[in-house]
């Protein structure tokens, strides 16, 4: 069983102390990436819930940069201490409640009159004892844990409605959370820590605050709110007594009420919620980002802005390395960009599987297409690309830009890729992108055919067809196995058969292959809702609402009509090479039906609300992902069940229960024969595995016929590579110095002319040497090769 497709952007990542590794929370594990290559180095697996925080322990000064220890916190309520270079679990501390955020400031404590470095974790936990549906309940708690002893220290620092993200300053002196319209800041004594000494400061605002950041050296805190403003409070927490701070003096600019700060200034560029704030390590600049997908660099003194635009999707977190030469920014599109710092050039991008496009429109279906032979999945992304993701290796293969348009953060989707279709061998791709009209103006549907490039997942645009079915939407596109032919069916009541014509002569004389329409067919002007070719490509089945029509694709002749289903068919597929057809209806009267194409009759059917279905390419079996209508769960988190059927028999062969089935999809993929050749041989047939991709694009690959779970192992390990040690200090700037040989002792033995005089001829100090004119001839003569004269 292979799992993959975890989100890399669920929590902020962390750099190792030398800045060479990046620790990214990915599902239940922490993935360690190399910042120089962007490749996965190792994975830390040990949590039983999603990892929510990773903190690299600042090394003690003596062993600087070599320490590779980190603490992680997870929703399973455990804090784990790792040696991440060796990927070893060192220690585990149990909190007992789901941890949502954790910081470990550098704090020393007086124990027996000596300063002892004490790792104290400030964790934000969720109090699960209170009911979730009670909106007023204070479910979030901030606690302190002594990590050496593994127990709680002091009392609760704060209680909030929901667990908030804790932010610590670089020095560890200040900690803060954004709670509703206030910033809670705790001033923590870094030396001689005692829980009683912690002082709390509150700063208020009129809007909900979302994030905050501390200045590295001064008493400045910046907070971002949900309307896009950034507030910068200067000299906070200077007051001696809480509550008395200058209520009388009115010269404090912009500070509200009795807040403990000198001034408060507002920076405004963002149009929506500020997602992250971060001060540069020298304190001169402030980085902010959010929905717009632009990193804004504020010069604090002048208020001037610089931008890093076109990062492709809304931003989530921003973390910089300890030496601040590299920073990384996490995007909602499940990407982590590594930026070279002063000029913010993207060095590498760590891409996870793209998340489904969030859309308020429930009728919009998420489209994934599987390349069964290569084990790829094609996912349309928010910025008009198609991502090809390798299922077996859990890495992004490539990204194909379908529409040339810049990403803009908008509330409603106006342009999207509505269909992706790949041919069986993966040689051709067809995409349909839809531009929705504005008050019936300027809507456009475009059909694009792509040719496969030299590498897997690389496609070149071959043909663009604007409005292939005039202004009617396209319901399905299918490629014919074994031939360069495709069919597109539209809701406008017709389907078109496209063929690739290679005789098209371009001006340069080389033959270009383009796709053109060969024939158009329609059945009683009914909307065509699905289309499929049979396994050998001889029959084309098109669903005209609830009727299945069978066509001869070459002559465009109607061969047969199969009687009606209960409701319009949304998916149609031939089962393997058999004569059975599987159809899916997803409207109010859901139905899964199997039809026999040879005698044009229904074989059997179920009333089953199916989310997706797929057919095996060789055998007569198919799988259906159906939703379980459980009363409690929200529609997004709906559980489902995968049923494996044989076409001959109406009772399912096997079933698997899965989570987050809404918006999920399934497919059969071919097993890599290289992985387990021996099992293939024993089975004597083509191994095909089932992939299930759930609603948040996490996936699992398993063998549906085999109960041994760990048959196939992940082979991401082959990518793991030990990169060379990074150069530090002088060598990182000027390169390696040549090794200086210790000076040879000039021996006092008399000079003997050797065969290789150039080794001895120039030794000695310059005032001892004979003049160069004399040395030169001897040196040149020594370089010439002496050859015995042989005249015959």
């Amino acid at each position, binding site marked *: 069983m292979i799992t993959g497709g975890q989100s890399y952007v669920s929590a902020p990542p962390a750099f190792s102390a030398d800045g060479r590794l990046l620790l990214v929370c990915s599902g239940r594990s922490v993935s360690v990436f190399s910042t120089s290559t962007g490749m996965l180095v190792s994975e830390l697996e040990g949590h039983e819930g999603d990892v929510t925080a990773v903190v690299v322990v600042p090394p003690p000064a003596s062993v600087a940069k070599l320490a590779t220890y980190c603490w992680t916190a997870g929703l399973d309520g455990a804090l784990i201490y790792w040696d991440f270079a060796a990927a070893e679990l060192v220690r585990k501390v149990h909190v007992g409640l789901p941890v949502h955020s954790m910081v470990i400031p550098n704090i020393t404590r007086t124990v027996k009159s000596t300063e002892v470095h004490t790792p104290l974790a400030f964790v934000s936990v969720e109090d699960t004892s209170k009911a979730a549906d009670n909106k007023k309940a204070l479910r979030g708690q901030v606690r302190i844990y002594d990590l050496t002893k593994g127990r709680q220290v002091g009392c609760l620092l704060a209680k909030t409605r929901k667990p908030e993200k804790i932010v610590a300053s670089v020095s560890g002196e200040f900690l803060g959370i954004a709670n509703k319209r206030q910033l809670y800041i705790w001033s923590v004594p870094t030396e001689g820590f005692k829980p009683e000494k912690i002082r709390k400061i509150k700063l208020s605002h009129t809007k909900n605050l979302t994030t905050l950041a501390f200045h590295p050296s001064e008493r400045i805190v910046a907070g971002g709110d949900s309307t896009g403003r950034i507030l910068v409070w200067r000299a906070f927490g200077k007051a001696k007594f809480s509550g008395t701070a200058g209520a009388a003096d009115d010269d404090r600019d912009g500070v509200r009420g009795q807040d403990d700060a000198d001034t408060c200034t507002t920076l405004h560029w963002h149009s929506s919620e500020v997602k992250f704030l971060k001060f540069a390590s020298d304190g001169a600049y402030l980085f902010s980002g959010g929905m717009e997908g632009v990193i804004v660099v504020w010069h604090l003194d002048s208020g001037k802005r610089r931008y*890093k635009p*076109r990062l492709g999707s809304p931003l989530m977190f921003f973390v910089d390395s300890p030496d601040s030469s590299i920073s990384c920014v996490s995007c909602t599109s499940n990407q982590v*960009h590594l930026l070279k710092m002063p000029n913010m050039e*993207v060095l590498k991008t760590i891409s996870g599987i793209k998340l489904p496009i969030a859309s308020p429109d429930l009728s919009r279906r998420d489209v994934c297409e599987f390349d069964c032979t290569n084990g790829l999945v094609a996912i349309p992304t928010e910025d008009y690309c198609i991502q090809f993701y390798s299922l077996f290796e859990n890495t992004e293969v490539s990204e194909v830009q379908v529409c040339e348009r810049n990403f803009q953060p908008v509330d409603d989707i106006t342009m999207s890729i509505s269909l992706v279709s790949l041919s069986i061998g993966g040689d051709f791709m067809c995409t349909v992108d839809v531009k929705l*009209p*504005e008050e019936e*103006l300027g809507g456009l549907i475009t059909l694009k055919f792509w040719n496969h490039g030299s590498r897997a997942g690389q496609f070149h645009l071959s043909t*663009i067809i604007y409005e292939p079915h005039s202004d009617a939407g396209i319901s399905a596109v299918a490629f014919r196995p074994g031939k360069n032919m495709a069919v597109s069916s539209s809701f406008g009541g017709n389907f078109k058969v496209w063929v690739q014509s290679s005789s098209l002569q371009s001006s340069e004389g080389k033959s270009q292959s383009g796709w053109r329409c060969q024939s158009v067919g329609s059945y009683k002007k009914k909307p065509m809702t699905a289309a499929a070719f049979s396994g050998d490509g001889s029959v084309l089945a098109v669903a005209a609402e609830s009727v299945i029509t069978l066509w001869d694709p070459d002559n465009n002749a109607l061969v047969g009509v199969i009687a009606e289903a209960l409701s319009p068919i949304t998916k149609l597929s031939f089962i393997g090479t058999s004569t059975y057809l599987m159809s899916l209806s997803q409207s109010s009267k859901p139905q899964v039906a199997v039809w026999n194409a040879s005698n044009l009759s229904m074989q059997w059917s179920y009333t089953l609300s199916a989310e997706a279905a797929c057919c095996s390419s060789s055998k007569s079996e198919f799988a259906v992902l159906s939703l379980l209508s459980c009363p409690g769960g929200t529609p997004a988190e709906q559980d489902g069940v995968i049923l494996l059927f044989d076409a001959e028999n109406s009772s399912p062969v096997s079933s698997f229960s899965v989570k987050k089935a809404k918006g999920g999809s399934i497919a059969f993929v071919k097993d890599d024969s290289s992985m387990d050749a021996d099992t293939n041989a024993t089975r004597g047939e083509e191994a095909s595995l089932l992939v299930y991709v759930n609603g948040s694009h996490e996936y699992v690959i398993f063998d549906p016929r085999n109960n041994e779970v760990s048959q196939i192992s992940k082979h991401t390990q082959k990518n793991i590579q030990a990169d060379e040690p990074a150069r530090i200090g002088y060598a990182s700037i000027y390169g390696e110095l040549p090794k200086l040989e210790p000076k040879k002792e000039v021996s006092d033995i008399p000079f003997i002319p050797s065969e290789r005089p150039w080794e001895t001829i120039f030794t000695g100090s310059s005032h001892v040497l004979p003049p160069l004119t004399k040395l030169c001839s001897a040196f040149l003569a020594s370089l010439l090769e002496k050859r015995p004269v042989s005249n015959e």
Partner: protein
Amino acid sequence: MAADTSKPLFPAAPHTSLLPSHGNPNRVSPEASYWRNFRSSELVTASNYPVTHLTFSPAHAKPTLAAVSFAAVQLFTGDPLAPRPKISVTKDFVFSPSFRSDGALLAAGDIKGVVRVFRVDKPTSGPLRTLRAHSAETRVVRYPVAGGDKIHLITAGDDALLAYWDVPSETPVFTVPAAHRDYIRAGAPSPADHNLFVTGSYDHSVKLWDARTGKAPSLSFSHGAPVESALFLPSGGLLATAGGNMVKIWDVIGGGRLVHSVESHVKTVMALALGKMGTTGETRLLSAGSDGYVKSFDYGELKITHSMRYPKQLLSVACSPCGTVLVAGSSKGDIFVRRRKKATEEEDEKVVSGVFDWTSPKPEKQALKPSYYRYFSRGQNEKPKQGDFVIERPKKVKIAEHDKLLRKFRHKEALVSALAKNNPRSVVAVMEELVARRKLVRCIGNLDVDELGFLLEFLHRNATLPRYARLLLGVANKVLEMRAEDIRSDGKLRGYIRNLKRMVVEEIQIQHTLQGIQGMVSPMLALASR
């Protein structure tokens, strides 16, 4: 080097992938910019007789020009050229002045066939020698250039007589009567050997002569048109002849093989000259035609590199040995001078040999000292050598005005700026982008009266183009629906609406016609497919 993988900026453009790729617009070649760098002026000649010949002294440090005008040879010297006393020869036409290789003597023929030799430094003192053999006008008088031959002279004339003179004794070494079957109008000494020379005649033939064998030509070939001018290229192995509107390059060593033929002039090519480029030191073959053009021909690359236009018919052309002055003589007595603008002092003082070098000399590099400003900016314009690792400067992306405005979300301004540019492609692109942003309707609502006028005019012109019709007809409907009040109140806008109406009527007629045709065709197609 890791490329920045963040997305490029996609400008608002429709269907970019289908557009043909455009090459770079032609830029001015370095050669053309060199020739354009010449400042033109005119020499004062008090006559309006044709300037049939122009020649520069090969040996003088300062350019010394000899020009014939009617009955006198005019000498100009210095930079800029200043007139010196005329050499009055006879009462009649003078032709073909020729400097001796050391520049001390000048020979010229006249219409009677008499050839006279003068001293250049004392032009008014009368002829030193008078050579009489020709009976008709002598259009070819040439001193040999190679080998420092100072005593011989080649003359040929319209009497088809060729004479090789021993100048001091005023006697011909040999004469060839009827050397050609027509007027001899072209002749040139070889720069490789002082015994060799060619003549070209109106009988189309070009003949190569060797003074050692005399009498019979060593080589003879036909140019194909009356030969007006002949010239050896600096190696002496290639010969250029001009006749008709063609210039032909011949390989003399290879037995008179035609190397290349240039047909760049519209009318007859009258004169040929060699021009040396001051910047690179390369030589070009200059040809002047009666169409008023001087063309520069790179005989290494075998292509025309530049052409210069003159206001009158040209009869002669010459370029000073150092390449700073280019003169052309017209049939109306004008001498057009083009001087290089930046003639540096060193170039003037440099003693220039009259012999053109075959290999182009490397331009000398002067050592830069830290006291110069240029010392600190040295090497900035260095071109990469082969094998150098070139780091490209990031290309500056040009962003159109409407793209800039779209980026700032100033939607109405973007639409107006695209409309003002009057490029339908970009207007439609902006409209499509606005639709994608759900802002087009609001933009239309916000346009003021003038901008609405722009939009209506644009719609009138483009709404029925099949490519844009689907969007633009919808837009036109929307505009009329939304802005009916404004349109009614403004007379100008009503005019646009009238135009729009007319266009719609025309379009409907076209559609009717097309439907009729379709009705006629479809039964035929149905029959054919049966």
